[in-house]
Every structure is written in structure tokens, then in C-alpha cells.
């Protein structure tokens, strides 16, 4: 017996596809796939390119794309590996040194850089303290640039000579901005920048010196990734690699959240695709039951019939997905065009991956959601040609839903690479669907009883829904999922923007004042109150070094190159405070109020440092403070928002325990732009005070957040548009029977107003139910996402109560528009078309 060869089956599938396409049979499925793939590709490209742009900005905070940091010099082969890969290289060596002049000495943080530094961003400097800034350049051999603090402390002026170790350097400019300074933002010693060629002559770097070495790298992402891969296994224990994400907490957090949001948005697009494909593939299959039975009569085997339709779907899918990917690619250009004012002129290209991922997404969604109805086609009994009531043998329900869920899960995981996010969405979605679907079925049973007494339009409209409660529940769930995806993306957008706004309010402090002497404290605070609306309190600062924990020397307790290690190797800024600083939250213990007086003074420690040092409540810490030793007992642990531009501290002592020691004061404040003169005045009035401008850093951070915000807004619009398109496409696929029924009713003499009312009742109720499901589901899924993924506090969203109304309006009008053919065309034509 002969079998149909694959090539002939393929040719047949091709011809059938062309014929079906010509007859308009594939429009709905094609359109659903097109929209879904276009949306997820556009979001993919947009996200990838925007991420690239944001990373490019964020790399400024490192001064490079990638940094190899270590407490000893990188080995020659570690450097050669990078240059061999074609990466640009710069070297930075940092150490502390006392700068001596005739006027006095000042501990400074010296940074020796080569001529290539910085690889990202630019240095800024001024000819005089507080004079106008200029970008670019760097100190040449024999020169040094220093922050205005040093000029003030040592009464220096530009042109003077300072001694760094054994080398004399001439001060040529005032350093006002280093792109990579944020890591040492809270260091209290002024910066001196010198050329690396002078380093050997200083004689400072000796074996055992405490020095930080950084190799800066810049290049294309592939070469960087290769460098990272090659180097990672060969890193010394005292070395680590950092990129923009590791380098800066503010940027890292914002980028991380934005990335997860973009991922979530593309997951929403995939969910929309899934729903659309599921609805239209079910229609594709049910409209082919007769054809499949006939083909089986004509002698096609079950496998061949299945193969024929699978090939048809695959061809359709590839075509729709490719065109969709192309449209998505074009659409993201549109998005970037709209955003052109906000983004850097040159954006990294997105490569081909987002397009391929978009196509793959569409195909997997097609496979997962279309295979179950397709499998039904293979099981249509050929006897159906004689008896039309014969339907395909129902497959196991687990198989149907298992296939779809597996497909959805795979896509989600592939897109987000985040199992937690995938499980939160999928698990939440399934739980919501099961729970709400069950409730809906119950509600429809109740409705059925009520319906007997309802008026004709309601009976006509709802009869259709209630006759097939399972199908109706399925449709309500499908539309509910679409609404859920859309509202979830809208909801998270608001939440993220709020968080970012709060993180950097418009009047976030843009200046720090250091070294305020106790004698000047009150006068300075009073002057500040005149200049700035809400200055932060003045915090006392006393440098102190941690010596022992419970009597054990700390050096022996901490592992090398951890946060704890870095903390015990330098002076910490100790302070005392009556109240818990705003933005700090206690994670363990109690604030001073509940503490007994007498005994050891209380101490509050920042949570992460406490972890790194292995501290717990009740531990006794001994500090060396200006030659005196003081002991304190850990009474609380605090979470600190390091990114709020307020003075923040690792260690806060109970008031009254350090007051006898010499302290200076620190604060931060907001000065509206254009007040440079007031600042100069302040500097003149309090010459000992060091004023640090962080406006540039803030502006940089704000511009990155603005980009992220714009991205989030546009992605939201895109998801909403895709959702609406899918809603209409999905509805189209359920209308056949309704159009026929409408025509029949008109043939029986029903007037158009009656039919319109019936349709409104039916679709309005369907949309309303979908809205209720979406509102409940959205709360459930958002609660999971907030807790597991975004790390945001969850609270109920009353505006979701509008969803049933929105759903009723949307689905209601879409349904009435979709079935207008039944109202307008001749009933005879509609009925004859079957």
C-alpha cells in the first residue's frame, strides 16, 4: 500500500494554504499572530536598544564598560588578554596619602590615571574654585588636579606646588567632576588627580601599601563578554570584575526594575498572542472538521491529514511571524523617533536577536495553542461525512492545557530568563483562571434560573451564552486575560514611576557640606535654612576605626575583600543621633527609646555591613576614636537607602556617648539652580566648610530615569494597542455562530433594534464578566509580582473596579460592530453561506 510522500503532502499543504488565504479563511489567525509577534518584537527591540543606551550612560559611572578591580596590580597576561581582544584600556591606581604644604597637611585620596582615562564620560574641571566648569582633558605628567576642598584646607591656589610622596606636582586645575567618583561618594578626603607616569617617582607604592588598582576596559559587548568569560576563572581572590550594573546602586536598581518591567510587558504581549492564537486556532480547526472528514473519506490517513493541517499552520505561522517581526522592527524605529529628544543621538543597534525571538515566540505560541485544536482535526471520524453530529473524540484535557501552559511557560522563561517571574505570572494566572472560571460557571447556573423571567432581548442574548456555559466561561476567561495583561502593565507602570519619583524628588539634595566646625554649626544651619527649603539635619562626624568584636580582633574575623574587610581597614564615619534618620528602617532591635540607661552605650549598625561582619544584636564592638578606645553594644540593625542623597551612616551611636570627642558636622541640602553666588558666599562665610556639588551626578541619574520612564510609557501604549487589536481579532473568531443566529432571527421577523439589544446584552455581560475576572486576577498576580519580583509594598488598587465597566464597553461595542453583518446583510445571503 502506498503512503503519501512528504513532498506531495507539502505541495498540497502549500496549495491549500494559498487557496484558503484567497478565500479569506486564514485572516483572523494570521492577523492575531501578526499583532502578537509585532508587539513582542517591537518591545524586544525597544527594550534591548534602550537598555543598551541606558547602559552606555550608566557606564559613565564606572568610567568604562568593564572594570577589573583589585588590591594588587593586574598580571600582564590579564591585561594582554584584553588588548588582544581589541578592547581599549586605561589604568587607574588609587591610594591615600598625606599632602604636605607649608600651610599644613591634609590626608587626601590620590588617583593616578593614564592619558586614556576616562574611557566613558569626561572629567570636568575649573580654572578657579567655584569658577565655570569645562569638560575633558586630564592632568599631564608633572601636573595635578585637586578638588576645591584641598585648595581650602591647605590655602592653595592654582599654580602652587604640592608634594605627593617624594614627587612635586604643580596644581593646574580644580577638579569638579569625575565620572567614576560615585563609588567613593562618601569619602571625606579630598581628591588629587595625577598622571600615572609620575607614580613611581612618588615612592609611595611599596609592597604592602594599601592601594586599589583598576584596569578600565571599553569595547563592543561581544568582546567584553569574551573578556569577562576568559578572565572570570582566572581572577585572584583580591580581584573582581564590575560593570555598570555592579558599579552603582541607583542605576543598578533603576535598570533592574526597568528591565523586569520590559520583560513583563513582552510577557504580556506573549500572553495576548497566546489568547489570540488559541481563539483563532480553535476556529481554524472547527471550520475544518468537515474538510478533514472528507479528506479521510478520500483516503487520506489520520497522520497525513494531521500533517497537512500542521504544515498549513506552520506556513501561515512562519509568514505571519516574519511579517510581524518586520513590522515590530519598523515600529520600534517609530518609537525611537518619537523619543528622539530624550535619547542619545547614537543608539546601539538591537541586532537580529529580538526579531528571531519574536518569530520564535509566535511559533511556540502557535504550536502550544494551536496543536490541541489541530490534534482534534486528526481525530475527526470519517463517518462525519454521513452524520454531521459526529465530533472529534475529546482528547485528555490535561494534554490540551498542558501543551498550552508548557508553551507559555517556555516563552516566558526564555524572554525573562527569570524563573521567579515566570512562576509568579503563570502560577498566579492559573490559580486566578481556575478560581474565577469556577465562580463564573456557578454564576451562570444562577443566571439561567433568572433568565426565564427576563425580557426577550435578554433571553435571546444570554440564551446563547448560557446554552454553552463552558464555552462562554472560556470566552470570558480569554477576554479577561487580555484585560488582565493590559491592566497589569498599566498598574505596574504607575507604581514604578512613583517609586522612581520618590527616589529622586525634584528637590533631592544636590550639595553636601562637610567639615562644619562645632563653633560654626548653629550659624551654618541658620544660613542654610535661609538658602534651602528643607536642609537635612547636621550630623556629627567622628572618624573611628573598628578594633574588636566581642573582644576578638576584627582583622581575624572578616574575609578578605568583603564589605566588612573594607570597612575595618579604614576609618568609619561615626555619628550619634537622637532620632532614626528618615528613610532608615529598623530591621532588628529597638531604637534608643526602649533602652536601659547605664551599661554599654547602644549602637545601631547598617544591615548589610552587619551581615558582612557577622554581627548580631548584643555583640560588643570596640572602636579606636582619635586614640581613645570606646566600646558599644549592638542594639539595632537598620536598612539604609544609600541612593537618596542624604547623609547616611554605617554606625550610629546612642546620644550622649561620643559627645565628649571632637567632631565636625555634615549635611546635605538642595540649592535651586542659579544660586552659584549664594554658594560662593557660603564658602566665603565658612571657609573651613567643604562644599561638594553633586548636581552633575544627580542630572545624570535623572536623565537615565527619564529614559527608563519614557520607555515604560511607550511600552505601555504598545501593550494597550496590541491588547485592543487582539481583543477584536479574538472576538471575530467567535462570531460565526452569532452572525448566523442573527440572520435566522431576522428571517423569522425579528427587528434590528431587538437584535441590537440582544447583542449588547450578550457582549456587555461577557465583557463585564471578563472585567471582573481581570480585576480579581490583576490584584492576585500583582500581589505576587510585587512581593516576589519588584520588591515593592503591595496595596489594593480601587481603580481596578472600573475594569468590569471598561470590559463591558470594549467587548460590547466590539461585539456589536463584529456582528453588524447579521444586522445589515440580507439574511438569505448569510444563511446560504452557512
Amino acid at each position, binding site marked *: 500500500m502506498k503512503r503519501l510522500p512528504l513532498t506531495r503532502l507539502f505541495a498540497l499543504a502549500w496549495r491549500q494554504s494559498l*487557496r484558503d488565504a484567497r478565500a479569506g479563511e486564514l485572516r483572523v489567525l494570521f492577523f492575531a499572530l501578526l499583532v502578537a509577534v509585532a508587539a513582542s518584537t517591537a518591545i524586544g527591540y525597544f527594550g534591548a536598544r534602550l537598555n543598551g543606551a541606558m547602559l552606555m550612560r550608566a557606564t559613565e559611572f564606572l568610567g568604562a564598560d568593564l572594570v577589573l578591580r583589585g588590591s594588587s596590580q593586574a598580571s600582564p597576561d590579564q591585561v594582554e588578554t584584553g588588548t588582544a581582544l581589541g578592547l581599549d584600556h586605561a589604568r587607574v591606581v588609587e591610594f591615600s596619602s598625606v599632602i604636605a604644604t607649608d600651610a599644613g597637611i591634609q590626608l587626601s585620596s590620590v588617583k593616578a590615571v593614564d592619558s586614556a582615562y576616562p574611557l566613558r564620560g569626561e572629567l570636568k574641571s575649573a580654572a578657579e574654585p567655584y569658577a565655570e566648569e569645562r569638560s575633558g582633558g586630564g592632568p599631564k605628567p608633572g601636573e595635578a588636579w585637586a578638588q576645591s576642598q584641598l585648595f581650602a584646607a591647605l590655602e592653595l591656589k592654582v599654580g602652587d606646588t604640592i608634594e605627593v610622596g617624594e614627587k612635586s606636582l604643580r596644581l593646574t586645575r580644580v577638579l569638579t567632576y569625575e565620572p567614576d567618583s560615585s563609588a567613593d561618594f562618601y569619602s571625606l578626603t579630598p581628591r588629587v588627580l595625577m598622571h600615572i607616569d609620575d607614580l613611581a617617582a612618588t615612592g609611595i607604592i611599596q609592597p604592602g601599601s594599601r592601594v586599589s588598582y583598576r584596569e578600565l576596559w571599553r569595547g563592543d559587548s561581544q568582546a567584553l563578554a569574551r573578556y569577562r568569560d576568559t578572565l572570570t576563572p582566572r581572577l585572584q581572590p583580591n580581584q573582581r570584575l564590575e560593570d555598570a550594573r555592579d558599579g552603582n546602586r541607583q542605576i543598578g536598581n533603576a535598570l533592574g526594575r526597568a528591565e523586569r518591567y520590559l520583560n513583563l510587558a513582552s510577557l504580556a504581549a506573549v500572553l495576548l498572542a497566546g489568547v489570540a492564537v488559541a481563539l483563532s486556532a480553535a476556529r481554524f480547526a472547527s471550520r475544518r472538521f468537515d474538510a478533514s472528514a472528507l479528506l479521510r473519506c478520500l483516503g487520506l*490517513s489520520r497522520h497525513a491529514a494531521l500533517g497537512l493541517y500542521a504544515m498549513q499552520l506552520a506556513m501561515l505561522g512562519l509568514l505571519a511571524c516574519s511579517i510581524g517581526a518586520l513590522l515590530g522592527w519598523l515600529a520600534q524605529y517609530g518609537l525611537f523617533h518619537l523619543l528622539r529628544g530624550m535619547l542619545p543621538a547614537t543608539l546601539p543597534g538591537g541586532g537580529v536577536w529580538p526579531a528571531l525571538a519574536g518569530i520564535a515566540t509566535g511559533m511556540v505560541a502557535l504550536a502550544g495553542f494551536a496543536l490541541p485544536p489541530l490534534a482534534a482535526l486528526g481525530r475527526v471520524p470519517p463517518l462525519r*461525512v454521513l452524520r454531521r453530529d459526529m465530533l472529534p473524540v475529546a482528547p485528555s484535557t490535561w494534554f490540551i492545557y498542558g501543551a498550552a501552559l508548557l508553551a507559555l511557560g517556555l516563552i516566558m522563561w526564555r524572554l525573562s530568563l527569570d524563573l521567579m517571574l515566570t512562576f509568579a505570572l503563570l502560577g498566579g494566572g492559573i490559580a486566578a483562571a481556575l478560581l474565577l472560571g469556577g465562580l463564573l460557571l456557578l454564576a451562570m447556573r444562577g443566571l439561567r434560573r433568572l433568565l426565564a423571567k427576563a425580557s426577550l432581548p435578554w433571553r435571546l442574548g444570554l440564551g446563547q451564552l448560557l446554552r454553552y456555559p463552558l464555552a462562554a466561561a472560556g470566552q470570558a476567561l480569554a477576554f479577561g486575560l487580555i484585560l488582565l495583561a493590559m491592566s497589569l502593565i498599566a498598574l505596574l507602570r504607575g507604581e514604578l514611576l512613583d517609586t522612581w519619583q520618590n527616589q529622586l524628588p525634584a528637590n533631592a539634595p544636590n550639595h553636601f557640606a562637610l567639615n562644619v566646625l562645632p563653633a560654626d554649626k548653629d550659624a551654618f544651619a541658620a544660613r542654610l535654612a535661609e538658602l534651602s527649603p528643607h536642609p537635612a539635619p547636621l550630623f556629627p562626624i567622628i572618624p573611628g576605626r573598628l578594633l574588636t568584636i566581642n573582644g576578638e580582633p576584627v582583622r581575624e574575623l572578616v574575609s578578605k575583600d568583603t564589605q566588612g574587610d573594607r570597612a575595618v581597614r579604614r576609618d568609619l564615619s561615626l555619628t550619634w543621633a537622637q532620632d532614626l534618620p528618615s528613610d532608615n528602617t529598623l530591621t532588628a532591635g529597638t531604637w534608643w527609646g526602649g533602652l536601659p540607661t547605664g551599661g554599654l552605650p547602644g549602637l545601631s549598625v547598617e544591615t548589610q555591613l552587619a551581615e558582612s561582619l557577622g554581627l548580631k544584636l548584643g555583640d560588643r564592638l570596640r572602636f579606636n576614636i582619635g586614640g581613645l578606645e570606646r566600646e558599644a553594644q549592638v542594639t539595632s540593625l537598620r536598612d539604609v537607602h544609600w541612593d537618596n542623597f542624604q547623609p547616611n551612616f554605617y554606625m550610629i551611636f546612642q546620644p550622649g556617648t561620643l559627645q565628649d570627642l571632637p567632631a565636625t558636622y555634615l549635611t546635605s541640602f538642595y540649592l535651586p539652580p542659579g544660586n552659584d553666588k549664594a554658594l560662593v558666599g557660603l564658602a566665603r562665610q565658612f571657609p573651613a566648610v567643604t562644599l561638594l556639588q553633586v548636581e552633575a551626578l544627580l542630572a545624570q541619574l535623572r536623565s537615565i530615569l527619564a529614559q527608563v520612564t519614557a520607555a515604560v510609557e511607550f511600552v505601555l501604549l504598545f501593550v494597550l494597542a496590541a491588547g485592543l487589536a487582539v481583543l477584536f481579532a479574538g472576538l471575530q473568531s467567535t462570531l460565526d455562530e452569532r452572525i448566523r443566529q442573527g440572520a435566522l432571527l431576522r428571517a423569522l421577523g425579528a427587528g434590528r433594534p431587538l437584535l441590537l439589544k440582544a447583542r449588547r446584552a450578550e457582549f456587555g455581560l461577557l465583557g463585564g464578566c471578563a472585567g471582573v475576572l481581570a480585576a480579581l486576577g490583576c490584584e492576585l498576580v500583582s500581589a505576587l509580582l510585587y512581593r516576589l519580583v519588584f520588591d515593592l509594598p503591595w496595596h489594593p488598587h480601587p481603580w481596578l473596579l472600573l475594569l468590569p465597566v471598561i470590559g463591558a464597553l470594549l467587548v460590547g461595542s466590539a461585539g456589536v460592530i463584529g456582528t453588524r453583518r447579521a444586522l445589515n446583510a440580507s439574511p438569505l445571503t448569510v444563511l446560504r453561506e452557512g
Partner: protein
Amino acid sequence: MSASILKAQNLSKVVPSAEGALIILHDLSLDLQPGDSMAIVGSSGSGKSTLLGLLAGLDLPSSGEVTLAGNSLNDLDEDQRAQVRADHVGFVFQSFQLLDSLSALENVMLPLELDGLRDARERARDLLDRVGLGQRLTHYPRQLSGGEQQRVAIARAFAAEPDVLFADEPTGNLDSHTGAHISDLLFTLNQENGTTLVLVTHDERLAQRCRRAIRLEGGQLVDRREP
């Protein structure tokens, strides 16, 4: 006497129902030679279509055996029976069963394309000419009248040059004039091609034109006319 093309022995079909087993067809035997024609008549629910389905291998009997073109259908699985249908069987249905998305020509081409014939288009065109639809090749089923649709279905049935043609109420949906025209066409093609014809019908005149006829009532054979 030449070999049988279609033979049924002690065919029964029983389906379970709420009231116990329901006998749809009871102990029926028949034997047809190549080129023969047979009508199956009876009232609605008498088991006519069930018998047709069993003879064509669309369904399996509860007991008894069908041999079609030398193949014992009971011994074959569904895919093997499909192959027997592909090789030997054609169908004409009361509801025409044309594919809506295909034009008249494409509907007729379908079985030829399944067979992989290169001249499918020419042969289909020729067949549609023979049934008088040479001018309606590109029309879709919904653009054709009932009689025209049935003529397309007949052209499709004969396209694969079947040994046996099964027709289920071929004139059932047509007016008497068109019905007469369709039955003329069926018998003419039957004779020209030497095809064996098995048809289920209510139409006594159509039944009269067959060499043989059997009458069913409640699944039982109640009358048999032999030549």
C-alpha cells in the same frame, strides 16, 4: 461468475444506549460484481446510512465482515482503510460536502492531487466539462446552485476513477427536475467507467434504475430485488 468487488456477510451494528443495546443493523449479507448497481431504500432511521458507512469502511460492524476490492476491512486499521478508500472508493453526499474555500475546479482536483497526478488540473477541467460546468470552473461552492454543487461533487467522485461509488441520497436536496438530471449523470458515468454504484435513496424512481435494490426496516432486510 467474476470475483466480487463488494461483499458483506452477516453484517450487524449494535450501539449501546440508555435503554440497553440498540440494534441498528441486523445480520445483512450482499454481494456485488464490478459494474453492478444497487439501491438501498427504506424510511428514515431504517439503517440505510449505517449500512453505507459500513460498506465504505467509514465505520466497523459489531459483527460480520465486509470485503471491498479484495480487502477484508475488519482486518485493517483506520489508516489502512483510508488507503483502500483512496485506491478504490468514491463518494457523493446528500449535502455535497464541497470545501467552501476551494473553487469548483480545485474541489475536483483535490483527490487527484492527493494521488500526486501531474495533470490534475486538465483532468479536473475535463470532468467538469463532462458534467456541464466547463464555464463555472473558478466559482466557489456558495456561488453555485444545489444542482451545480452536486455535479461538482460527482465530478470529484469520478475523478479518482473509483471501483465503487457510494452515493448517500444524491438527489435528496434537489428538486425533481434537477434530481433527474443528476441521476442521469450518475448512471451515464457509471456505465462509461464501469464503476460499481451503491446508492442510498428515498427516491423510488432512482432506485428503479439500479440493477439491484434492498429495502431496510428497523435495521432488518425486508425486501430484496435481484436482476
